[in-house]
């Protein structure tokens, strides 16, 4: 089943064209990796899909479950099952992590016609799900991401993914800033959430994450387009040869 269809997507930020015609198709049950150098447009693609207000879509279309994604504001995209794990998770001082998680969870539940959980019920749920990322429950009582280390922020992102149960999760450089133990934990968390009903897109510079979360497809972006698609061996080849040989082809 086609989950995401990106056709000729063009987008710009502050008048500068970044995406110059991206084509991508993702089916339920698949894991995709998008690789590329800094500035190739891979993070922009994630933010455009999530609806970040700083980016303007200038061409092409995106269908999510057959629905025009750009007709939906960011919160509706989350409600229909799109999730972006941020490269730099935002600190929200004064908003308790547990209250935020519960509000987000209940909002999504309601939009799916399911019952909300009261604080006690939610506490049980979140303490169960938090095990997925081996996160200290003390982080639930703190302000959202405030003063969290890089690794703790990324775990908090995957905890949100575990709670919101998205159809498509885009992990934007979730591996950056993680030491090898944290990387393993986060990757295990993501793997435990994989199913034939959902799909995962990993945006990353490096091959090492792909040792833990093995992709079905690897795409290489350059200058705002996907210039090559292959299987997991493409990532190994990139690790060995760098990106230059692809740029020459493009």
């Amino acid at each position, binding site marked *: 089943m086609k989950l995401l269809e990106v056709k000729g997507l063009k987008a710009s930020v502050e008048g500068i064209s970044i995406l110059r015609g991206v084509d991508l198709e993702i089916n339920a049950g698949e894991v995709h990796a998008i690789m590329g150098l800094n500035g190739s447009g891979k993070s922009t693609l994630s933010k455009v899909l999530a*609806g970040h207000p700083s980016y303007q879509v200038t061409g092409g279309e995106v269908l999510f479950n057959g629905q025009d994604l750009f007709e939906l504001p960011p919160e509706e995209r*989350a409600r229909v099952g799109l999730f*972006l794990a941020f490269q730099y998770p935002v600190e*929200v001082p004064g908003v308790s992590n547990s209250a935020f998680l519960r509000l987000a969870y209940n909002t999504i539940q309601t939009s799916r016609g399911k019952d909300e959980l009261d604080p006690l019920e939610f506490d049980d749920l979140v303490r169960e799900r938090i095990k997925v990322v081996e996160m200290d429950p003390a982080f639930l009582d703190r*302000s959202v991401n405030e003063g969290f280390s890089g690794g703790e922020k990324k775990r908090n992102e995957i905890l949100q993914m575990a709670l919101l149960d998205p159809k498509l999760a885009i992990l934007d450089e979730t591996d950056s800033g993680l030491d090898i133990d944290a990387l393993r934990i986060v990757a295990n968390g993501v793997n435990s959430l994989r199913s034939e009903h959902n799909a995962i897109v990993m945006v990353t510079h490096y091959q090492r994450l792909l040792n833990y979360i093995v992709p079905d497809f690897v795409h290489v972006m350059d200058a705002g387009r996907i210039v090559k698609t292959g299987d997991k061996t493409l990532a190994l080849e990139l690790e060995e040869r760098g990106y230059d040989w692809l740029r020459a082809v493009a």
Partner: protein
Amino acid sequence: MKSDDCLAGLLADAAQRDAFSVLRGQAEVRARALKFPQDKDDDWRLTGLAVLHEQEYLPAGKTTQIPSIEGFAIPGSCRIVFVDGFYHPALSDLSGQDEIRVSPLGREEKSLHAHFDKGMKDAVFAQINARNFTDCAWVHVQGEIQRIVHVLHVTTPHQKPVVSYGRALVVLEANARVTLVEEYTGPDSPYSVNSMTEAVLGEGADLRHIRVQREGAQAVHLGHALVTLSRGAHYDSTALALGGRFSRYDQRVLHQGEGSDVRLDGLILADESQVADTHTRIEHLAPGCRSLQQHKCIANGNSIAVFSGNIVVHRNAKGTDTRQSSRNLLLSSKARIDAQPQLEIMNDDVSCKHGATMGKLDAEELFYLMSRGLRESQARKLLIHAFAAEIVDRISIQTLVRSLRESIDGRLV
């Protein structure tokens, strides 16, 4: 109305014949000499006084109405309620007092008179209050037990706008402790309230003072507080200005005793066409005192919020330590916030720090919350609450915090 007429109107009330008639007479003389404030006056230029000229207010009389105070009750507190400026015995609960004595005007301990009306002689509305006050909450604390004294001012609906007066004197003997909650509320029709609260802290005394102004939408509120600290005393104040069409709070704190300690927190939440102004003045008159001030303004709609925070360190106040922070959140392009931290330092053995910030809601924070399914309005509310929480959450009375959150929510629709 012209300014002269405004002043004449406010002084036309029949002078009360009571133990304070001499004091009332002196206050009238001072009020006439001070004149009605003008827009060009330094102390008022940011506020805009036009609204005070629009309306004539009749002195409120004793009412037979019994307003509902449901939703205001604080469990376990000693409650004194004033309706339109008059003590209301049926709504009050002065029982169970021992180390704390609370009385209305006429039943007070006469020894307290020595502390009455000891300052703000340069503030015209404080003088008008001294001339016209109809009642007073006399609070005398001798014990160290922690108990809440709740002073509630309610204005009732009237056909013609009325002005009523609130007055309180809180005296803490040496090492006494108490929590004072002052609240102001009323209907959404036009009226005016003028209040004056004096607190005198003996050596080592500790006053936690929570002031909640949530007047009705058309109200004019002119509030004053004067707090004097003896050696080693501690004053911890949270003042919230949420309601009223026009509100002003003048708070003055005097460090008279060595090593006294003050914390002043304040929050203004202004929306639509509200004008809300807080002027504070902390005077360091003795050595080794500390003051920590944190003020926040949130302005939405086409409201105006003003914070003027003055800290004066006198010549002999060596070893003074003061911190002041003013953080402000502007929610609309038509709203205005004026934040003015001011330091006057007259000796060089001091540590004074102050800072002010002005910002909008953070777009990245909003997007982050929305990317998790929250509507923009939900996300905005959450962030505004978070901004206010730093002030509101220091209040440890849970029933009050809950009702304040609802008040804040109600203002952010």
